[in-house]
């Protein structure tokens, strides 16, 4: 590998990493603000203008608290739990395409940590690993409530991963590619997958709520039954890591949703804007600015879905455990299979008909 390429990749990965962290950080602020606004109050507004320094204050507090490990806990696994949760959450952001390309002295730099031809499989693999952090943390705490929370998390994640994967298959049948970059570029020109896969989108969205352990599927940390769930015994920055990992997961899944169903960095009228910019500013600057606009659009979509997560959290009550399992196994999986059949039939029979009719 060339040195220049190596440096560029390193910088891209660092930027992606930092962006993910910053967005996760400000999601904590956003969550509290949204919660406040929905409950007719102001939310945090004392630290800095509009409470914008609140995440820093929280982080400072977390860092300076006593790093306590219970006497009967498994010490190493107790530390490994939050580290794993954080690691797996951050790993998934590597393959998300944030924008098209930057042009610089004849070089094209892709705005993506790693361009992989099995991007979506990678995301699924890493997200499935995420439950290890919770499992290990819950088990190592040596506490009944933590263990129950961890078991719930594991069973919930396994159940909903099935439906999630099945709903995704319909997308893959349409795009016939596993690469996230490819899936995004196929949605160019308003061909967003949401218009073709509304049912698949709803299933995917529901499952990603469950995968992120967000309300209404936050049974692993259900306070009324399990004290704090898998992080009952945690304190200081280890607890902070768990909470932070949840917000990173939220951002990653919002980004994945916008990549898979909402065209990623594509927006209506994109080609016209591109032509105008390259015409006015030259192929290099114009191209770069067009890319930046696309990236901004992508972040807009992802942030909207983060907001949607919060919005749902402060609207819906928590599911009961049997309801959760019923919904996952008896409703979402059959629906997802039905969706696959419909998509298959449409791709086989409807698509040739429509293309023939259009031509």
């Amino acid at each position, binding site marked *: 590998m060339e040195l220049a390429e190596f440096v560029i990749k390193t910088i891209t990965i660092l930027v992606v990493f930092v962006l993910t962290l910053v967005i996760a950080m400000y999601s904590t602020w956003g969550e509290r603000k*949204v919660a406040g606004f*929905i409950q*007719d*109050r102001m939310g945090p507004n004392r630290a800095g203008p509009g409470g914008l320094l609140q995440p820093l204050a929280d982080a400072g507090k977390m860092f300076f608290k006593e790093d306590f490990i219970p006497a009967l806990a498994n010490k190493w696994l107790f530390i490994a739990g939050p580290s794993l949760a954080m690691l797996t959450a951050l790993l998934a952001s590597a393959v998300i395409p944030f924008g098209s390309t930057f042009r610089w002295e004849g070089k094209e730099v892709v705005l993506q940590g790693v361009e992989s031809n099995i991007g979506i499989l990678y995301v699924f693999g890493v997200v499935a690993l995420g439950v290890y952090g919770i499992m290990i943390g819950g088990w190592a705490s040596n506490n009944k409530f933590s263990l129950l929370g961890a078991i719930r998390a594991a069973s919930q994640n396994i159940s909903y991963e099935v439906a999630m994967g099945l709903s995704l298959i319909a997308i893959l049948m349409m795009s016939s590619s596993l690469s996230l970059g490819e899936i995004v570029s196929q949605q160019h020109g308003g061909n967003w997958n949401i218009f073709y896969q509304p049912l698949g989108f709803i299933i995917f969205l529901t499952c990603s709520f469950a995968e992120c352990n967000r309300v209404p599927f936050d049974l692993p940390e259900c306070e009324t039954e399990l004290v704090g769930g898998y992080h009952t015994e945690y304190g200081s920055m280890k607890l902070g890591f768990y909470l932070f990992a949840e917000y990173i997961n939220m951002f990653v899944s919002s980004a994945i949703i916008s990549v898979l169903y909402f065209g990623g960095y594509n927006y209506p009228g994109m080609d016209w804007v591109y032509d105008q910019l390259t015409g006015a500013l030259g192929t290099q600057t114009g191209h770069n600015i067009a890319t930046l606009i696309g990236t901004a659009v992508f972040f807009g979509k992802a942030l909207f879905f983060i907001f949607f997560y919060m*919005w*749902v959290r402060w*609207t*819906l009550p928590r599911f009961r455990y049997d309801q959760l399992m019923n919904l996952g196994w008896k409703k979402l999986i059959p629906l997802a299979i039905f969706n696959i059949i419909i998509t298959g039939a449409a791709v086989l029979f409807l698509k040739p008909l429509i293309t023939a009719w259009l031509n």
Partner: protein
Amino acid sequence: MQLTNRSKQVSNKEMTLMERAYLPAIATGLAITLKHFFAKKVTIQYPEVKRYLGPVFRGRHILKRDEDGRERCTACGLCAVACPAEAIQIVAAEREKGEEKLYREEKYAAVYEVNMLRCIFCGLCEEACPKQAVYLRHDEFIPVFADRDQVIWGKDLLVEDMNNRYTRETWTKEEAYELNAKRANGEVTNVVPRAIP
């Protein structure tokens, strides 16, 4: 017996397909929360904005002077006797010649101390006072204190400032807001509640 007309007949019927799909109900719920998201917030930004507490709120103590600026208190000790928390301590003294400008009666309180940790703000001292000397202000709190030497308030903090006298002009919330608005417009410039020291 029917108390309200809000009672609802509970039924155990099967949900329709539309109801079992959850999504319409979820959309309704989301619409409701979104409406609240943009609604006006009820929060009062406390340290910056203070709510009018009403004309009979009992806050910070004050020892009134009369129109000529003489202290009204004659150190009779009725307030100290009436105080259920025994928060008031008075040392009486006799007025000397030449002090007629300072004290209205021939006897005055050389020391008048209120222990703010003991005071329960019941207002019995106000009621007991025959000279209309001690009041609990309706417009000011006792400020927060953290040190022991700030617990006992002496005459330096209690006696009224003649440049900033304490009156109670309004007796309803509406009147109070009206007066506030007039002060903000500059129509009334008499008494401005004094800042907490």
